[in-house]
């Protein structure tokens, strides 16, 4: 049958693994499919390109929020820092819905965040 999940990978420890650097491609494809009509198809190259773009965007916004936390001598980056970073980087149209969503429950907010994508 299948190998166990605990099977060791052949990657070297010093190399950043692909699954650590990028979001899972199946989830990215599913999010892309939500916005498209029923009979649309998405090429694998499109999913891989979107995978790179969204992973870089997450690092971009997170580094801005992390820089603010570094200046304020805080160690935890919370949701308000992410909203502030979005506003600082010029994504004002996204910062306000995110701020409103983050006030609701965590699970409900995570559901609504998928709608924003």
């Amino acid at each position, binding site marked *: *049958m*299948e*190998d166990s*999940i605990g*099977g060791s*990978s*052949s990657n070297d420890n*010093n*190399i*950043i*693994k*692909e*699954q650590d*650097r990028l979001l*899972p*491609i*199946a*989830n990215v494809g*599913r999010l892309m499919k939500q916005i498209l009509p*029923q*009979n649309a*198809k*998405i*090429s*694998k*190259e499109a999913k*891989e390109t979107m995978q*790179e*773009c969204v992973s*870089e965007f997450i*690092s*971009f916004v997170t*580094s*801005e929020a992390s*820089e*603010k936390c570094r*200046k304020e001598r805080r160690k935890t980056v919370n949701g308000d820092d992410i909203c502030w970073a979005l506003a*600082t*980087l*010029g*994504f004002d*149209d996204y910062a306000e819905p995110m701020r409103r969503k983050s006030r609701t429950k965590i*699970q409900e907010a995570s*559901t609504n965040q998928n709608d924003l994508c």
Partner: protein
Amino acid sequence: MAMQTVYLKEHEGLVYNSVGQLSSVTSAPWWSALGSQPVYGEYCGQIKPFSFEISNYVDQFPAGKQAVRGVEQLLDKGHTTTQFTIFPDDCKMSGDAENPQATLSLQSSLAEPHNRFEIGFNQPMICAKYPYMDQFYGLFSAFGPQISGRIMLPINLTSDDGPTYVNAKQYHGIIRRRLSRAKAVLENKMIKRRKPYMHESRHLHALRRPRGCGGRFLNTKGSTNGNGRNESKVNKTGGRQLQSSASQSSEVLHSEVGTLNSSKETNRSSPNISGSEVTSMYSREGFDGFSVNRLGSSVHSLVDMVLSRPLNGLQQYQVTAATLKFD
């Protein structure tokens, strides 16, 4: 409208970064390019934000030292290592340039941005944007036409295109991300190519499985057991929401595990597949066949498997079927 422009600029920035990382440039062309610079002041103006970031981030100096040692160790000099070695030499050069000139206007112009940055630190929320705009407004008025709301990024040597203008609010973020990407490439040797599968043993197992006409796996009973195991994992995760269809839930779990191969197996061996999924599956397989890297690595793995041990009739048939699939 403006948001689309922002996205386009960001995308162009990403393309330049990827081009810069992929190609390798030795230090000699950099200095020759420096010598051939028509306007030296413009070059100094572009270097100023880097020097500012050096003074701001003290921890970057160890990274620079590691870059220097990396240059000493490695024969191949990439653009990223060159980018790190620029800072101390450029500081020295700027110092040498300042000594013979010694003009009051130059000193006053150098002093003013520093004071403004200090003001920016005292009030980060209010003054964070204003001094940057002042500095670069003066810069553009001296050296070229100004585009409203855009700041010119430092020119990437490996790119053939001209300078890229980005949103002023995102300039420092982009520079910071460039440095962290270069640092990651230098230290961790990030994999730039994408592997077709995660685990060798799972890949070999998939090759051993019997396939019917069209390349699908024959064993339907195994997929049922796999689905059962996936359901138990769903219960373990707890807070995760269950998807409506079984194939989607199994796909979610396999993506959590991070094995692309298992995801493909589940997609192929699932008995209930809708028409659109079948069509998308065929298109994906087609694209898999056309990708050069994937084809080369797959053929290489096939050759390794053939050479490692002798094959019986059934395994030879499977290898032949897999080879025909890749052709």
